[in-house]
């Protein structure tokens, strides 16, 4: 995992012997190639193992496209495809603007409480998606307090899926848009102000175009997430069929890996479309954050700041209501009949022998994922953006980086079993270890982290590299002295994102854990399955609490670093 970063120092000594620019460029290209190979092994390998299944029958004999023909002959399929697409489109159309204005408020206003708003906005990724669906059922279900708001419609079905998915995808979108907005050139705004450009006009001519790339990326991530998540529709979807649930039915319900592989392939189509959109955008994008840029410092404007504050308060409150219901459930005796306060779910959860060790396993796994994942993802994104030539490798890395978002965790996990547990695979020793859980999790959450890194790097002018090169400063020095410090907010965000997601990931690891690497989120799934909603909520609360603590400690520890490296941007962050 850390090969890319770890192999840098010895190269530094070797670089003196050979003509510098040439050698370094080749080193960078070699490292990029290595990234590409690693991604291929840990993403394409398992996927290929799954895809081979799609042209085989149950006994492993080659049957060509028979499985596809059989599947497309099922009447439910077309409906599933249609349902999947319109639900995901609706979620995207609501989440992205919601997240954009939230990010806009955080970066372009001087409203109070920005740090609090930022933290609240990230809470949805602190708990498993399963929990949000349960919480929405408790708010809007038959026994729900807010049932009346739905006007007689049932929460089970598209309404529930859309609401829960918006909740779950909000922080993902926010992270990407925020990065795009943070890195904007203040000079443009100064120029606009000296020309007395009205606020709305600045918004449409500077802010929006500047955030275009981030917006497209965010839309892609939200869309793909909604398409591939099965936890939410499984819990709240009722009889509403979508593709991810079809995979669940085939793989877990009927153990038909072949048909499951077919549906997985169908599911990959939307991401390829999203990739093409992304690819086309690439050509039109220019760096906004040039070497001469200055960070934007928002001015105090009472009306604007108040409006933004009100908007963020409403969104934050809604987010807290969802989380609050889960926490509340963990403290009452029995929903909805005995709402008296009780700690029995915590006692049960804590006393239950396996749970505490699984909680520590989760912490360990999340830590490794954050450290090694961030290193690899940022380094590979850097090489991708700042290395010259190798268009083919670059295209491959870009494609590989955008695939994971569309691969349901369950499919990835199954692929890992089939690929790494194969007797002939030299990497077989990884199977049933902590390492394979970390690898699967990094790959599973690759896309969003990669996009954050790319968005941050894109906003950095290539001039930095050009100047360094002409001054004969090796690229790795520029990387550590300029790129990393400037991108530190994005790097820290990636680390935190990977950590909190690793704490709650279920679908990919449910097939991969061994008796000694059981995880807390899997324990939640089992408790929910057994009907212990209270205990499941208690465990989720524990995870949210510990993730929050880790986030705060993390923030404090890195604050020192931030103030040292980001003084030029301090107002944008505060």
């Amino acid at each position, binding site marked *: 995992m850390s090969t890319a970063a770890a192999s840098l120092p010895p190269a530094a000594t070797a670089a003196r012997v050979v003509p510098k620019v040439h050698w370094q460029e080749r080193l960078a290209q070699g490292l990029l190639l290595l990234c590409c190979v690693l991604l291929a092994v840990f993403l394409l390998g398992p996927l290929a193992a799954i895809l081979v299944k799609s042209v085989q029958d149950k006994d492993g004999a080659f049957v060509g496209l028979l499985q596809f023909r059989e599947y497309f002959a*099922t*009447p*439910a399929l077309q*409906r599933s495809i249609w349902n999947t697409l319109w639900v995901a489109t609706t979620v995207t159309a609501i989440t992205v603007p919601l997240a954009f204005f939230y990010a806009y408020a955080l970066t372009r206003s001087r409203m109070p409480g920005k740090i609090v708003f930022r933290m609240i906005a990230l809470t949805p990724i602190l708990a498993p998606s399963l929990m949000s669906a349960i919480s929405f*059922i408790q708010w809007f*279900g*038959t*026994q729900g307090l807010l049932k009346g708001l739905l006007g007689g419609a*049932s929460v*089970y*079905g598209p309404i529930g899926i859309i609401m829960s998915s918006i909740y779950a995808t909000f922080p993902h979108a926010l992270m990407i848009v925020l990065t795009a907005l943070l890195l904007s050139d203040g000079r443009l705004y100064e120029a606009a102000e000296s020309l007395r450009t009205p606020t709305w006009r600045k918004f449409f001519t500077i802010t929006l175009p500047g955030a275009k790339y981030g917006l497209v990326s965010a839309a892609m991530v939200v869309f793909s997430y909604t398409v591939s998540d099965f936890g939410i529709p*499984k819990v709240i979807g*009722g*009889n*509403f*069929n979508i593709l991810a*649930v079809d995979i*669940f*039915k085939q*793989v*877990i*319900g*009927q*153990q038909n*890996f072949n048909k499951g592989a077919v549906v997985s392939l169908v599911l990959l189509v939307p991401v390829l479309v999203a990739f093409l959109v992304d690819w086309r955008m690439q050509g039109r994008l220019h760096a906004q954050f040039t070497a001469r840029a200055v960070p934007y410092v928002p001015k105090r404007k009472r009306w604007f700041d108040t409006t933004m504050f009100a908007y963020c308060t409403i969104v934050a409150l809604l987010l807290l209501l969802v989380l609050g219901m889960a926490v509340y459930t963990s403290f009452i*005796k*029995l*929903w*909805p*009949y*005995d709402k008296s306060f009780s700690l029995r779910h915590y006692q049960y959860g804590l006393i*239950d*022998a*396996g749970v505490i060790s699984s909680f520590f396993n989760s912490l360990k796994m999340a830590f490794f994922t954050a450290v090694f994942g961030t290193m690899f993802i940022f380094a590979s994104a850097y090489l991708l953006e700042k290395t010259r030539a190798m268009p083919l490798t670059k295209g491959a890395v870009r494609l590989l980086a955008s695939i994971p978002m569309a691969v349901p965790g369950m499919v990835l996990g*199954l692929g890992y*079993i*089939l690929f790494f*547990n*194969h*007797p002939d695979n030299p990497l*077989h020793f990884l*199977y*049933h270890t902590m390492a394979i859980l970390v690898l699967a999790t990094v790959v599973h959450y690759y896309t969003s982290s990669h996009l954050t890194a790319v968005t941050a790097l894109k906003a950095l002018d290539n001039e930095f590299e050009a100047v360094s090169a002409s001054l004969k400063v090796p690229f790795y020095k520029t990387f550590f002295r300029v790129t990393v410090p400037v991108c530190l907010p994005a790097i820290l965000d990636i680390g935190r994102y990977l950590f909190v997601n690793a704490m709650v990931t279920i679908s990919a690891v*449910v*097939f991969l*854990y*061994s*008796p*000694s690497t059981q995880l807390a989120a*899997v324990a939640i799934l*089992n408790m929910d*399955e*057994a*009907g*212990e*909603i209270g205990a499941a909520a208690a465990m989720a609360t524990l995870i949210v609490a510990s993730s929050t603590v880790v986030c705060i400690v993390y923030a404090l520890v890195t604050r020192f670093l931030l103030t040292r490296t980001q003084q030029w941007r301090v107002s944008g962050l505060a």
Partner: protein
Amino acid sequence: MKIATAVRCLASSLVVALAATAGLAQAQKTELNVYTALETDQLKAYTEAFSKAYPNIDIKWTRDSTGVITSKLLAEKANPVADMVVGVSASSMAVFANEGMLQPYAPKGLDKLSSQYRDPANPPMWVGMDVYGAAICFNTVEAAKLGLPKPQTWQDLTKPIYKGRITMPNPASSGTGYLDVTGWMLMMGEAKAWQYMDALHANVAQYTHSGSKPCRQAGAGEFPIGISFEYRAVTTKKSGAPIDIIFPTEGLGWDLEASGIMKTTKKADAAKSVMDWLATPAAMELFAKNFAVVAIPGIAKPLEFVPADYEKRLVKNDFAWSAKNRDKIIAEWLKRYDAKSEPK
């Protein structure tokens, strides 16, 4: 200098000694990788009792729902990690046996087990532990609010008054759902069973993706009637949910929790010891605390909330028939109910 050397000597000899002890301890204890779908609290009790009987065998459990464990075992088929499988449904065991993943073994005292609660082959590929059958969870509080009478039979569920009040597991997602469907077929005959399901479909609010969920939803008052299974019904009621458990008199579909040894295991002797223990009356007494019917007749005691004639209500099962016709039945079920099962 001298002290440092002495310390180093001492340290290294300590390490060697520790390693030796650890090696010895390991030599005595056999570690067994066992895949299971049993509940965690059951596992705890069973493991404690087993460790007392066989202190030299250390069981490492990998626990998950039946669907996940079955998929995991099949996916690992090329290179199995598990040494044996304990407490997974007989329908899944039949699949493993068909795939050639199990090795036959006749545990000591096999002749004491009811012939219908083990693999008919001799020696058997798998041996049953206990029975879990269909049950209906009925929320009395919500029913009173809605004015719903308590149903007593499967036929009752087709009455128009229950429209939109019933949930049951989707047989395409859940083994329990498939057990319900085959149960109806075995008691009514195929054609009548489809007619029955057509009528039931008109009342079903939701087909869930797990066998436990209908009872959970009934317990939480989401949908007052849930078709689920006995063990989950009893635990839900014990947790304080206001439900009555109904065991329809026409008959109940059922499955077994069963165990078997993987063909590829290198620790067959230890696995055989586990199989022997699982078939002892002592083990059966532990199972009987959770289940009303266990594989050795005469051991089970009446359980709270479960009628005394429970075993008589079980339909005559045919696991081979269920396994063979699974794809066909599920395809027909999907055609009839899934494509049009969207909310109105």
